[in-house]
């Protein structure tokens, strides 16, 4: 018993530690069996299995295989001769079916199954899902995979029961609303057992997940952009009617790129499976590439009805609609296809699908630089945001393939029709309604894509087409027939194009919109005195229609516009209407036109044709306005003013003037066409009558009385100021019983051509403002006021003035009357009256020293002001004509200016220049003082010279010793053995001067160079001086050939060969250079001319007085001299010049001793110094003469 207890304990221990062994039926090991047939064990556990063979010695030759692999002999051991045992250590995870372990000896073979796994984990994460609210499915997470069969038991205590569900990991139960669910799951397998926690699920823990929708089909159409999706709602699967939301997703099949996702809501009908449909519009034609669609669902119920968790169903399998890029067409194509009309502002995708075997190289949308989207290997697209309207011929989309095939399409982008605006209708004939409107925004679509408009009667549905605007009709217009008895119309203008349609409505009462045509053929019928008959006709048949006719009458002066309205009854076409126009003025040209409106006013018609009519003449209606002017010699000039057209009533043919002496019965009448007449009368009083006459009669007579001769000359002129545009004239009444006043004015009474003008006033007036268009500013007028009495008109007052004064137009003429050393008397003359332009108030005088023309005037007051602020000497007396300017400086020029001024301003300036004479004292002093000074200086010098005459002689002109008196010459030994010419020995002349005499010819050459190089240097004069004065000026002829090449040296240098003559004792003159350059050029050999120059130039130091320089030498002589010359050479040893410097350095000691020509800047260097000692050659410290630069190369090469 104890053993069994112990065995049981061990077994439980093994089980609890994860070991499990299935005990074979032949555990004791019968021949021909294995110790274990089926082994189910934990992963990583170890086991021994024994094989019992029937044959002897089997254990020595046994083969073990595991999972088909032969096991090494070390894995198994021989128990007996027929029993072998294998040891399986750390078993790995086998397949779910397990692995076979086989022991084989000859014909005996035995197999056991080995399966490893894990014990179960406690189930967790219980989740309960319902799809129809009828059943609920609860599933759990099993945790780690056990690899061996695990069974589950679900226990519930409401009701208290357990259900074995086998290997399933869920359990289905009925869905009971408002009931909690309590479950516990027990997992059991061969390796162990685990029990979950107790799960409790309330309603809001329940998940509702609809069934996966059944996607039926996906269709393209009706346009290339539209996609239709159909799916089965599956209502019969649901136990209750509920709200479902379907999510539809469209994506590109090739790239799996989502294009669009949208929702569709539906209330489930549980009675049958409803087929739902949804249309989706793509922004890319569906032919561009393949599109796939899938769908899923979720509950759309509110939380009130279901408080649980809502979950999406699984996606349905996708359905695909293929694009053109999967077809095998050979021709490429662009979508949208050619001719497609698209709406502006939208975002569109254009694509090109290449033919089979081709690919796309470029894709253009108009001139837009857009990014190309690769849809597939044969399809590309361009996405365009906010497309703009096309031009008239459309927008081009072009696709170029790799084989240079151009595919294209023309797309038309525009707008749908705008609402017709400003719609209005009217009728001209009460038979047709004409409606006009404006189409609003341009659609950018033309030709067959343009908007077509029509007008529709909403009552009768009658439609009539509309026309577009044109040159004839500036608006869009439609006409619609009016039917009898119908005055009210409800009309709509409807516009339609490929992108849409629009319409506007209007209600029209025909009687309110009658717009008659204008009266036709208006013409004059008859005229009688001041009346006129005119007639017109109707353009169309207006029979029985009451019309309002407005007649407008304007006279040609524009002084009166009259308008008459007539109500007329319309008649047949061309029937005439006639009216009489009264109260017109005689002899007046009138313009007449007429227009119509309906009796119920809507709008006026256009005006009829315009006619011009002149009424008949009549006698002048008013008497003439007559005035007279009586000259002292009793020549009376009668003036009258022409009648206005309104007064004349016709063309005035003549004027009749009749005068009659008072007290006499005889009269004289004159007929004339002028507006004035001069009559010589005697001193008696006269009555003069003037009448005007036209073809219809005469005017009332105008009478003026000429009083007997009076002496009006005593009435003087009084200055008056104008008012700017006239005169304000006042007068005193002298006769109470008078017949009025006349103000007469004239520009200049003394001028016979003066245009007399006048104005008459009634007797109660004693002041008047005289204004006239003829009055001018700046013109002098003379006015007279006359009082009309029984005997005639009598002068009361004389005035003179300007309406407005201006500055004088001219300056007075200015002259210098007298000039003294400190004053000037100036004089000026009057300004002509017509140039005064105002009353001269005075004059302004300026003067200034004439420093220069721009100097400011210095006013008389002594203040110095600028020109704009001068304070002149002002003479307020207009009669003054002279002025004396004092305080001037003698002998000084002055500028004197004069202006006249009026109240209107200053005249222009008149200038005159005057110079004051010098004073006599100044002249005398100016002559005398210098003379005295000169004399005094002469006397002082004479005294000085007298006293210092010895010193002056020694200094300036010492005595020249006579050689004949020399002791040397007197010594006879000196002359022995010596040539006769030797008068001086150069050795004894330590400080000597070299005189180089240069012939003129070389001077000319130098001069020629100088003219080119430096004009300021007058070489010939120097040469001349040297020649004539024989001074010790060294004039060096630099154009002697270089010694290196020619070997010729100026013979004058011969003298310099003497070693006792030091270079420092040579006189230096100016430095010149450029002349060397040309002469040292290669190729300028010792030509004849040059030799002559050399000969003539002959430098001859004067120290060699015994060797007389030969002014002219033959060439042969020179050539003989050449080799012997060791004199100074020009610094033409170019190799020693520094070419870098462009400036002359200051003279240095080494070269200061070099002689130079007066025309040369080169110093003369003894040849021996150059030849014998190179250290003495000018080095870098020597003169730097840029002008040697050109010749440097040749000499450098010589050096090399």
């Amino acid at each position, binding site marked *: 018993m104890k053993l069994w207890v112990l065995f049981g304990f061990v077994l439980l221990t093994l089980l609890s530690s994860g070991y499990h062994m299935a005990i074979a039926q032949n555990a004791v090991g019968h021949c021909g069996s294995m110790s274990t047939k089926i082994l189910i064990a934990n992963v990583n556990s170890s086991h021994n299995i024994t094989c019992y063979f029937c044959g002897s010695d089997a254990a020595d030759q046994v083969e073990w295989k595991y999972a088909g692999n032969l096991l090494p002999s070390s894995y198994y051991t021989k128990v007996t001769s027929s029993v072998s045992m294998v040891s399986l250590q750390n078993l790995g995870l086998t397949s779910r079916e397990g692995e076979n372990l086989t022991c084989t000896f000859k014909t005996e073979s035995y197999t056991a199954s080995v399966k490893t796994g894990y014990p179960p984990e406690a189930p967790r994460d219980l989740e309960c899902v319902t799809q129809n609210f009828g059943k609920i499915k609860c599933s759990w997470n099993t945790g780690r995979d056990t690899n061996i069969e695990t069974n589950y038991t679900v226990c519930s205590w409401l009701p208290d029961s357990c259900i074995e569900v086998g290997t399933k990991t869920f359990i289905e139960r009925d869905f009971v609303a408002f009931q909690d669910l309590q479950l516990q799951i027990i997992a059991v397998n061969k390796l162990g057992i685990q029990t979950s926690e107790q799960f409790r699920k309330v309603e809001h823990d329940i998940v509702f997940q609809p069934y996966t929708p059944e996607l039926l089909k996906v269709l393209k159409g009706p346009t290339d952009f539209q996609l239709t999706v159909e799916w089965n709602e599956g209502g019969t699967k649901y136990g209750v009617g509920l709200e479902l939301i379907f999510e539809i997703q469209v994506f590109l099949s090739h790239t799996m790129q989502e294009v669009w996702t949208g929702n569709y809501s539906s209330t489930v009908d549980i009675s049958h499976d409803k087929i739902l449909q949804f249309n989706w519009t793509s922004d890319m034609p569906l032919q561009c590439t393949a599109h796939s669609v899938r769908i899923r669902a979720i509950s759309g119920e509110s939380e009130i009805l279901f408080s649980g968790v809502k979950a999406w169903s699984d996606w349905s399998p996708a359905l695909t609609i293929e694009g053109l890029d999967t077809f095998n067409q050979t021709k490429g194509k662009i979508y949208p296809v050619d001719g497609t009309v698209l709406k502006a502002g939208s975002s569109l995708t254009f694509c090109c699908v290449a033919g089979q075997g081709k690919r796309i190289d470029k894709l*253009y949308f*108009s001139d837009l630089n857009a990014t190309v989207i690769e849809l597939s290997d044969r399809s590309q697209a361009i996405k365009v945001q906010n497309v703009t309207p096309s031009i008239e011929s459309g927008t081009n989309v*072009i696709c170029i393939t790799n084989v240079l095939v151009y595919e*294209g399409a*023309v797309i038309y982008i525009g707008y749908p029709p705008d609402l017709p605006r400003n719609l209005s209708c009217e009728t001209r004939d009460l038979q047709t309604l004409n409606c006009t409107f404006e189409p609003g925004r341009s659609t950018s679509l*033309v*030709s067959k894509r343009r908007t077509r408009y029509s007008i529709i009667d909403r009552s009768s549905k009658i439609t009539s087409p509309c026309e577009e605007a044109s040159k004839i009709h500036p608006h869009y217009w439609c006409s619609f027939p009016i039917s009898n008895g119908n005055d009210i119309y409800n009309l709509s203008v409807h516009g339609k194009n490929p992108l849409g349609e629009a319409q506007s409505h209007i209600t029209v009462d025909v009687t309110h919109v009658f717009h008659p045509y204008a009266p036709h053929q208006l013409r004059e019928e008859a005229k009688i005195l001041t009346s006129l008959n005119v007639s017109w006709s109707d353009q169309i048949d207006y029979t029985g229609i009451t019309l309002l006719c407005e007649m407008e009458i304007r006279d040609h002066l524009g002084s009166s516009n009259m308008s008459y309205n007539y109500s007329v009854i319309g008649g047949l076409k061309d029937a005439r209407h006639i009216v009489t126009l009264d109260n017109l003025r005689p002899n007046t040209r009138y313009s007449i036109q007429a227009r119509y409106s309906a009796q119920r006013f809507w709008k006026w018609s256009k005006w009829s044709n315009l006619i011009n009519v002149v009424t008949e003449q009549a006698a002048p209606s008013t008497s003439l306005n007559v005035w007279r002017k009586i000259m002292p010699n009793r020549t009376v000039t009668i003036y009258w003013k022409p009648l206005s057209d309104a007064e004349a009533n016709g063309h005035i043919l003549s004027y009749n003037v009749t005068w009659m002496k008072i007290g006499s019965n005889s009269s004289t009448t004159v007929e004339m066409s002028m507006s004035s007449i001069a009559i010589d009368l005697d001193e008696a009083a006269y009555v003069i009558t003037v009448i005007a006459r036209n073809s219809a009669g005469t005017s009332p007579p105008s009478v003026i009385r000429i009083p007997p001769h009076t002496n009006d000359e005593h009435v003087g002129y009084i200055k008056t100021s104008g008012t700017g545009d006239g005169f304000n004239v006042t007068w005193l009444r002298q006769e109470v019983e008078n017949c009025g006043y006349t103000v007469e004015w004239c520009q200049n009474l003394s001028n016979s051509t003066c245009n007399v003008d006048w104005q008459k006033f009634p007797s109660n007036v004693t002041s008047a403002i005289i204004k006239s268009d003829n009055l001018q500013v700046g013109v002098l007028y003379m006015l007279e006021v006359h009082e009309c009495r029984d005997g005639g008109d009598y002068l009361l007052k004389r005035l003179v003035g300007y309406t407005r004064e201006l500055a004088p137009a001219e300056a007075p003429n200015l002259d210098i009357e007298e000039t003294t050393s400190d004053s000037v008397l100036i004089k000026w003359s009057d300004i002509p009256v017509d140039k005064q332009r105002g009353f001269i108030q005075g004059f302004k005088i300026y003067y200034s020293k004439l420093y220069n023309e721009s100097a400011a005037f210095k006013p008389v007051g002594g203040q110095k002001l600028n020109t704009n602020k001068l304070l002149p000497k002002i003479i307020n007396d207009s009669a003054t004509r002279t002025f004396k300017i004092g305080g001037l400086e003698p002998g000084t020029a002055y500028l004197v200016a004069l202006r006249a001024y009026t109240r209107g301003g200053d005249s222009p300036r008149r200038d005159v220049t005057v110079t004051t004479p010098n004073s006599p004292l100044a002249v005398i002093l100016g002559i005398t003082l210098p003379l005295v000074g000169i004399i005094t200086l002469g006397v002082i010098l004479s005294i000085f010279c007298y006293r210092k005459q010895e010193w002056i002689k020694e200094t300036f002109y010492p005595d020249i010793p006579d050689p004949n008196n020399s002791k040397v010459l007197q010594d006879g030994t000196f002359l022995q053995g010596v040539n006769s010419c030797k008068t001086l020995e150069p050795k004894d002349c330590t400080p000597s001067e070299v005189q180089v005499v240069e012939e003129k010819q070389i001077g000319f050459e130098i001069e020629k160079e100088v003219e080119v190089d430096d004009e300021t240097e007058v070489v010939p004069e120097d040469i001349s001086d040297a020649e004539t004065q024989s001074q010790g000026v060294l004039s060096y002829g630099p154009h002697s050939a270089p010694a290196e090449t020619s070997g010729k040296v100026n013979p004058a240098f011969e003298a310099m060969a003497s070693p006792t003559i030091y270079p420092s004792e040579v006189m230096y003159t100016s430095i010149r250079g450029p002349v060397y350059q040309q002469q040292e050029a290669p190729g300028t050999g010792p030509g004849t001319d040059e030799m002559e120059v050399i000969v003539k130039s002959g430098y001859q130091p004067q120290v060699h007085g015994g060797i007389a320089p030969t002014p002219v030498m033959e060439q042969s002589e020179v050539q003989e001299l050449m080799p012997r010359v060791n004199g100074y050479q020009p610094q033409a040893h170019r190799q020693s010049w520094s070419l870098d410097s462009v400036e002359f350095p200051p003279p240095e000691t080494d070269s200061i001793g070099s002689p130079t020509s007066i025309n040369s800047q080169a110093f003369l260097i003894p040849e021996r110094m150059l030849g014998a000692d190179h250290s003495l050659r000018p080095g870098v410290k020597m003169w730097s003469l840029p002008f040697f630069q050109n010749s440097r190369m040749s000499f450098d090469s010589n050096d090399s």
Partner: protein
Amino acid sequence: MLKMVQELLHRSQHLVDLYKRQQGPPFNRPGFAMPGLSLRGLPEVPRAEGNQREEAEDDEARLQAEHEAYRGLAHYLRLVLDDQRELNPSGQDLHQELAYFAVNVEGLAVNLGLLLRALGHEGPDGVHLGTGLTGASDWDKKRAGLVVCTRGVQWLRASEGDFSALVSRYN
């Protein structure tokens, strides 16, 4: 005829530019050209073949080719005009220019026909010209119009050279 050709050639570039401008991008881009489009009755200008053939035979052959080309060109210019009236209804300048060229090119073809008849050639055997671009897409109309215009320029340029050579040879 030489002057006529020169006058037409002078105006032809304006026609091409005007045409391109009215068609919008990319037609109006500088240097834009379209690969050849086959138009029945409007052959391309043959390449120069050198002087291997006899001159007289060469001249007559060229004149015949030009005669046929201008007949076709006049026909197609009218079709292009019709198309452009539809595509560019307000392009009056282009319409006038196309009409001008259609009339003058037809006159050129007639004159060439008379010349060939005088040289003893029978009239053309009624070459069947294309029925135009009826039913073609708007893109095809635009493209064909450009080909017609540019090919017209090429033929005129070729004719100018031929006629000049003939004038200089026989004067």
